[in-house]
C-alpha cells in the first residue's frame, strides 16, 4: 500500500518549502521538494546601477543576511577587475565568519534542536542530575543545579499557562525522541541562552556594516573607514568591541555548541546511517588570506567530490559554460530553447509559467510531479547533481589533509565510536556544521590579529576608488561573484552593459540542495537524502522527514529567484 505524505509548511527553516513523500510501507520510496514562493528579484535587478545590486540581492535572504550582498559586490568587482585593500578583505572575512557562527548556532538550537529534543520531557528532569551531566561535558559556567531548576520552573509555568505558543502541536512524546529528560532540559536551557548569545554575536556586523540583519556593503571595499584618531571611524574602541564579540563567540562554540552536538548525537547513532543520497559534493571555496582573490590562499578549498571518492578532487570553473547549468524540466519556468535544455547563468533566462508548466491551481492537495512542481530550478555541475554546504566543505578540507579538520573529525568519530563512512549521513551533515563553526571562529581571531597588525603598520585603506565612477567602465563586462555561504556554494553572475545591469542570475546553495529532478530524472540532494533509508514511525507525525531536511538548513527564499532578459527586452528604470 503506498501513500503520499505531504509536509507543508516545513517550519523552522527560512522560506516556503513543501515536501511530498511517496511511501512504500513504512519506507520513503521517493520524495519531491517544492519551493512554493517566488518574487522575481533577478528581473527587478535588470537595468539598475550595478553598484546598487548588492542591496537588492541581499534581500534574497535575511537569515544568511550577508551572503547575497557580498556575492553581488564580488560579481561587480570580478567584472571590472577591482582589487581590494587588504583591510577591506579582512573586514569582510570577519563579517563572513560572524555570519557562519551566528547562523550555525541559531540553526542548531532554534531550527534543528526540536527535531531531537523533547521539550515536554524536560519537565521530568532532575535539575541536580542535569547539572552533573552538563558539568561532565563542558566547563560552561551556567551549569548549577539551581540554574537548571529555575529554567525548569520557567518552562513548567509556561506549559501550565495552557498557551503553548510556538511549542503547540509539536511531536512531543514521539517514539523517535531518545534523549533522557536531563539532556532535554540542558538543551532547552541552551535554546534560551543561544537566543541571548546571538544578539551579542550580531553586533560584529553592526560595527562594520551599520546593522544586522542586512549590513551595508560597497563595491570596491567596505564603507567603514579606519582612523584611530576619529570618533566616527573604526578606532581602538570599536576594535576592542570586535575582539570582545569574537571572544564570546569562541567561548560559546567551544563550551556549548561543540559539546552539545556531541552529547545529543551520541543518543542517535542510527542517524549516522541514513540521509545522504547523492554522494557528490561541491565547493567554490572562500575566505582569502590576502587582498587578492587567489583560490590558493582560501581557507575553504574549491573542488568537486564524486561518488564519495575523497582521493580525487575535480576542478570547478565558474566561467565555463559547459560546467554549471540550470534546468527547468520540473520547475514552473519556461526556456526559449525548450524545457529540457540547460543554461549557464551568463545566458540564464527565466520566465514564470505556473499554469503552463504543471502548476496546480490553489487550493491544492498534491503537486503534479510529472511536470513542473517547484519555483526552484535544477542546477547541475557537468550534469551531476551535487550537495553543497558544511558537509561538502568538511569533506573537502578532510580530503586535502587540513590539519585542524582532520583532528576535529577524528575526535568526533572516536568520541561517537563511528567509522568514516558515518559522515555521509543526516547527523554527519549536522556534525560537519558544528565542526566548521569551530574552524571558522578560530580563524576569526587570526583575521582580527592581521587587521590590527596591518593598521599598526600604517595601512588604513578600506576602499579602492579608482573604478567607482561608471564613466571609467568598459561598455560591456561580465563577472562571477562567488562565496561559500553558510549553506554552501553561492554564485552571482552579472552582465553589465553601458553602466547598467543587462543580466543577473543567482545560483544559490539551497537551489543545489533543494532543487527538483532534472531532464534525466536525477533527484536533487533533499530528494535523494529522503529516499536513503528513511522509515516513518508515524505517518501523521513525520519527524524523520524534518530531521533530514533540517540537517541541510534550508533557505528557500534564497533558492527561488530569477528571471531574465527573455527577448532581449530591457526594463527601463528611471534613475533620477
Amino acid at each position, binding site marked *: 500500500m503506498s501513500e503520499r505524505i505531504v509536509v507543508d509548511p516545513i517550519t523552522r527553516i527560512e522560506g516556503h518549502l513543501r515536501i511530498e513523500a511517496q511511501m512504500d510501507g513504512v519506507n520513503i520510496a521517493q520524495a519531491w521538494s517544492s519551493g512554493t514562493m517566488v518574487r522575481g528579484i533577478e528581473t527587478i535587478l535588470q537595468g539598475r546601477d550595478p553598484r546598487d545590486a548588492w542591496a537588492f540581492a541581499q534581500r534574497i535572504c*535575511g537569515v544568511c543576511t550577508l551572503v547575497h550582498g557580498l556575492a553581488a559586490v564580488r560579481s561587480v568587482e570580478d567584472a571590472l577587475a577591482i582589487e581590494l585593500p587588504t583591510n577591506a578583505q579582512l573586514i569582510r572575512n570577519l563579517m563572513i565568519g560572524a555570519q557562519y557562527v551566528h547562523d550555525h548556532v541559531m540553526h542548531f538550537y532554534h531550527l534543528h534542536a526540536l527535531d531531537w529534543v523533547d521539550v515536554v520531557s524536560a519537565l521530568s528532569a532532575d535539575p541536580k542530575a542535569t547539572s552533573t551531566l552538563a558539568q561532565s561535558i563542558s566547563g560552561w559556567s551556567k551549569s548549577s543545579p539551581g540554574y537548571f531548576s*529555575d529554567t525548569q520552573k520557567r518552562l513548567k509555568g509556561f506549559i501550565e499557562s495552557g498557551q503553548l505558543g510556538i511549542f*503547540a502541536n509539536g511531536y512531543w512524546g514521539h517514539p523517535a525522541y531518545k534523549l533522557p529528560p536531563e539532556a532535554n532540559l540542558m538543551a532547552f536551557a541552551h535554546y534560551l541562552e543561544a537566543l541571548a548569545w546571538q544578539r551579542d554575536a550580531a553586533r560584529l556586523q553592526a560595527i562594520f556594516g*551599520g546593522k544586522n540583519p542586512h549590513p551595508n556593503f560597497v563595491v570596491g571595499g567596505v*564603507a567603514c573607514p579606519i582612523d584611530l584618531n576619529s570618533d566616527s571611524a573604526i578606532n581602538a574602541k570599536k576594535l576592542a568591541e570586535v575582539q570582545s564579540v569574537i571572544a564570546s563567540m569562541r567561548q560559546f562554540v567551544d563550551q556549548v555548541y561543540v559539546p552539545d552536538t556531541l552529547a545529543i548525537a551520541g543518543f542517535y547513532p542510527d542517524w549516522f546511517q541514513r540521509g545522504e543520497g547523492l554522494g557528490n559534493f561541491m565547493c567554490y571555496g572562500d575566505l582569502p588570506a590576502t587582498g587578492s582573490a587567489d583560490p590558493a590562499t582560501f581557507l575553504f578549498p574549491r573542488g568537486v567530490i564524486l561518488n564519495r571518492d575523497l582521493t580525487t578532487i575535480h576542478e570547478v570553473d565558474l566561467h565555463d559554460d559547459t560546467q554549471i547549468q540550470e534546468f527547468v524540466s520540473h520547475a514552473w519556468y519556461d526556456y526559449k530553447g525548450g524545457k529540457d535544455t540547460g543554461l549557464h547563468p551568463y545566458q540564464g533566462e527565466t520566465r514564470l509559467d505556473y499554469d503552463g508548466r504543471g502548476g496546480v491551481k*490553489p487550493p491544492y492537495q498534491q503537486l503534479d510531479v510529472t511536470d513542473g512542481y517547484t519555483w526552484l530550478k535544477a542546477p547541475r555541475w557537468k550534469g551531476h547533481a551535487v550537495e553543497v554546504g558544511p558537509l561538502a566543505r568538511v569533506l573537502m578540507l578532510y580530503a586535502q589533509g587540513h590539519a585542524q579538520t582532520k583532528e576535529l573529525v577524528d575526535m568526533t568519530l572516536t568520541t561517537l565510536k563511528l567509522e568514516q563512512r558515518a559522515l555521509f549521513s543526516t547527523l554527519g551533515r549536522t556534525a560537519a556544521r558544528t565542526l566548521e563553526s569551530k574552524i571558522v571562529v578560530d580563524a576569526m581571531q587570526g583575521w582580527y590579529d592581521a587587521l590590527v597588525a596591518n593598521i599598526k603598520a600604517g595601512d588604513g585603506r*578600506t576602499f579602492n576608488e579608482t573604478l567607482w565612477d561608471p564613466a571609467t567602465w568598459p561598455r560591456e563586462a561580465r563577472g562571477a561573484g562567488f562565496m561559500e555561504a553558510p549553506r554552501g556554494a553561492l554564485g552571482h553572475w552579472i552582465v553589465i552593459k553601458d553602466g547598467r545591469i543587462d543580466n543577473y542570475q543567482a545560483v544559490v546553495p539551497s537551489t543545489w540542495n533543494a532543487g527538483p529532478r532534472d531532464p534525466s530524472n536525477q533527484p536533487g540532494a533533499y530528494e535523494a537524502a529522503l529516499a536513503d533509508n528513511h522509515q516513518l514511525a508515524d505517518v501523521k507525525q513525520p519527524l524523520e522527514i524534518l530531521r533530514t531536511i533540517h540537517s541541510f538548513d534550508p533557505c528557500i527564499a534564497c533558492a527561488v529567484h530569477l528571471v531574465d532578459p527573455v527577448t532581449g527586452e530591457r526594463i527601463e528604470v528611471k534613475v533620477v
Partner: protein
Amino acid sequence: MRVFEKNPLEKGLAERLREHGVSRRGFLKFCAATASMMALPPAMIPAIAAALERARRPSVIWLSFQECTGCTESLTRSHAPTVEDLILDLISLDYHHTLQAAAGEAAEAAREQAMRDNHGQYLLIVDGSLPGPDANPGYSTIAGVSNYSMLMEAVEGAAAVIAVGTCAAFGGLPAAAPNPTGAVSVMDLVKDKPVVNVSGCPPVPMVITGVLAHFLTFGRLPELDEYHRPLAFFGQSIHDRCYRRPFYDKGLFAETFDDAGARAGWCLYRLGCKGPSTYNACATMRWNAGTSWPIEAGHPCLGCAEPRFWDAGGFYVPLSVPTGPASDYLLAAGAVGAVAGAVVATKARGRAKEEAAVRQPVTVEELEQKL
C-alpha cells in the same frame, strides 16, 4: 496537559512572571525599559506595571508571505523586551513558521485553533508582500493555499493587523519595478481592520517589540502617521536626528568612501544619503543593542523605511529635491544646509508619492550656484 488549579486566563502577567521565576524587580525593570523606550515619564511606570499585571498573554498569529525572514531575524535581535521574554511571558506566539515546533498539518491546526479560540482578539502580524487578488495565486502558497486566501481568512477574526517590514507595509522589494509577481501590501487589501505599518528593511528590532509593548501595555494601538506608521518611532527624519547633521549645516561632506571627510565623520549627503527623506528610528535607537547604525558605520542611509524606496533613484545618487512651484521658495530660503534639509523634509513628509514623478537631481553645488 495538566489540569489547572486556577483558570490561567484569570492570572495577571506579574503573577505569571513570578511563577516563571521572574522577580518583581525584574518585572519593574521591564516596565521601566518600556516606559523609557516610549519616552514616558518615570511616574508612568506603576501604571504600566498595573496594566501588564492584568494582561492575558494575547494570541499572536504571524504570517510570512513574500519575505526573506530578515524581519523575524530582526525581532530576535531586540534586547528589551527580548524575544525569549516575548514568547514565553508576554505574548502567545501561536503561529510563526521560523520558530514554531510543529510542521505541516500540525502547524496549520495550531493556526486554526488559535484563530477559533481567540476570534476577534488576536493580533495578526504579517511580514512580506503577497501576490494580489488579480495575480497568479501559484506565485506564493502555504499548505497549498494562496497567500491572498490565507491573509483574508486570518484578517476576519483579528483585532488588528501589524505589517512588519517594508514589504508587508508598502510592497517593498517584490513590488519594485517591474513587480513581476503582482505583489501588493497588506494595507492595499485590508480595509476593515486597523493596520499598523512597522516599516524598514528590516525594521529596527526595538521598534518591532516597541509597538507590541505599546499594544500590550495600553491595550490599543499607537498614534500613526499618514503611512500608518507609529509616530513614536517614525515621527522624525533620520536627518533631523543624525549626529552628523552639524557637518551638513556647515557644508562639510565626505566626497567618497574613505576620504578625509569620511574618516572624520562628515555628512554623507553627497554619497547619496537618504536621511533627509527617511522617517525611522535608526538615528535615535541605533541597531543591535545600540552598537551602531548605518551612517555611523560610514554608509549612506538607503531610505528603507519609505514607500517605493527601491525605485527612488540610485543609492549613491545625491538626493533629489522636488521641483515645481516650491523651487523658488526653496532657493530663496537661505543657507544651503537649511534649504535642502528643511525643504526635502517638508516635501517628503507624506507626499513622496506625488512628488516622485517630478524629482530631479539637485546637488549641493547646483544649489550653491543658484543661491
